[in-house]
């Protein structure tokens, strides 16, 4: 039990930078929701139930244009399909004997950021770590959205600009440390960033939506890496580590 508590506390702590970044992004999301005619409550409700930036931005656009519900469903499927890959990875991070309910709860927390820290946890994933992070991050996301609608453009641009890199900083903090020991990961990151740049700037390639760009590049690059550099099963990965503090 104390182990669960420890993981929950660590999740709360690691959730703070996520909440910070979420707040900034959610604030701009709130402004977009306001412009589309949503009330603060509706926008906050959307954020609480969806917890997905790209999906919600697109959703607000579709609501404003009065799209069909089926169109909305298809759009969400395409934009958020990357979560499917992330959940596949997490399915292997969770203990196979874990009660079913935990899998249902962890699923709610599969955002880019909470997935990132959950996947980076040492050994097997204790679901309480994910819950802790979600308990801080989701309120940041929801309240940020609410305030974005209510306060509109009151927040100074400079502050929003600075806060908008919090999430990227967190991603970097997760993928860079293993580079010190693992040259394959280092190469993988460089290749991924170059490929991502090509898909962002080159004609034709840049027309592919960000959601699909992430899916295509992940499948291709991680797929090639898996074939070229298979990871031998380590017994070390089986056991669940204890939460590290600091």
């Amino acid at each position, binding site marked *: 039990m104390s182990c669960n508590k420890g993981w929950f506390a660590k999740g709360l702590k690691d959730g703070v930078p996520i909440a910070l*970044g979420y707040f900034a992004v959610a604030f701009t999301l709130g402004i977009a929701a306001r412009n589309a005619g949503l009330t603060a409550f509706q926008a906050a409700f959307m954020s609480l139930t*969806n917890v997905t930036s790209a999906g919600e931005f697109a959703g607000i656009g579709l609501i404003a244009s*009065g799209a069909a519900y089926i169109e909305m469903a298809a759009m969400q499927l395409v934009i958020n399909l990357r*979560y*499917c890959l992330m959940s596949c990875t997490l*399915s*292997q991070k969770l203990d196979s004997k874990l009660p079913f309910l935990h899998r249902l709860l962890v*699923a709610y927390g599969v955002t880019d950021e909470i997935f990132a820290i959950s996947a980076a946890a040492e050994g097997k994933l204790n679901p309480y770590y994910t819950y802790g992070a979600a308990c801080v991050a989701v309120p940041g996301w929801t309240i940020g959205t609410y305030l974005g609608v209510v306060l509109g453009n009151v927040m100074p641009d400079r502050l929003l600009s600075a806060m908008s890199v919090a999430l990227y900083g967190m991603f970097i903090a997760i*993928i860079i440390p293993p580079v010190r020991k693992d040259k394959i990961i280092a190469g993988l990151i460089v290749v991924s960033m170059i490929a991502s740049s090509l898909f962002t700037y080159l004609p034709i390639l840049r027309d592919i939506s960000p959601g699909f760009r992430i899916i295509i590049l992940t499948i291709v690059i991680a797929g090639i890496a898996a074939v070229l550099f298979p*990871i031998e099963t380590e017994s070390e990965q089986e056991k669940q580590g204890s939460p590290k503090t600091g």
Partner: protein
Amino acid sequence: MKNNVYLYILVMATVTYLIRMLPLTLIRKEIKSITIRSFLYYVPYVTLAVMTFPAIISATGSPWSGLTSFIAAVLLAYYGASLFKVSVGACLVVFILEMIV
């Protein structure tokens, strides 16, 4: 005529949750294939790298502050700063740079 906003939100939430939930509940056994295991092991690194760069450059007020915060965050992370420090450090770099320029 406008459709019901709450129904839209419900559709969005349901689709998004199913995408997240189905793999987690359907794949409960440990996957034995080394290739698939390796693939899933590499997924987060590739996904996060792709999402971070070059997006971080266009996230801030100017590309220079974005690029500088990227470099600062990579150095901080490489030399062992915690998740929180790297994240806040990246924010501070942007804030200070955009105050000066």
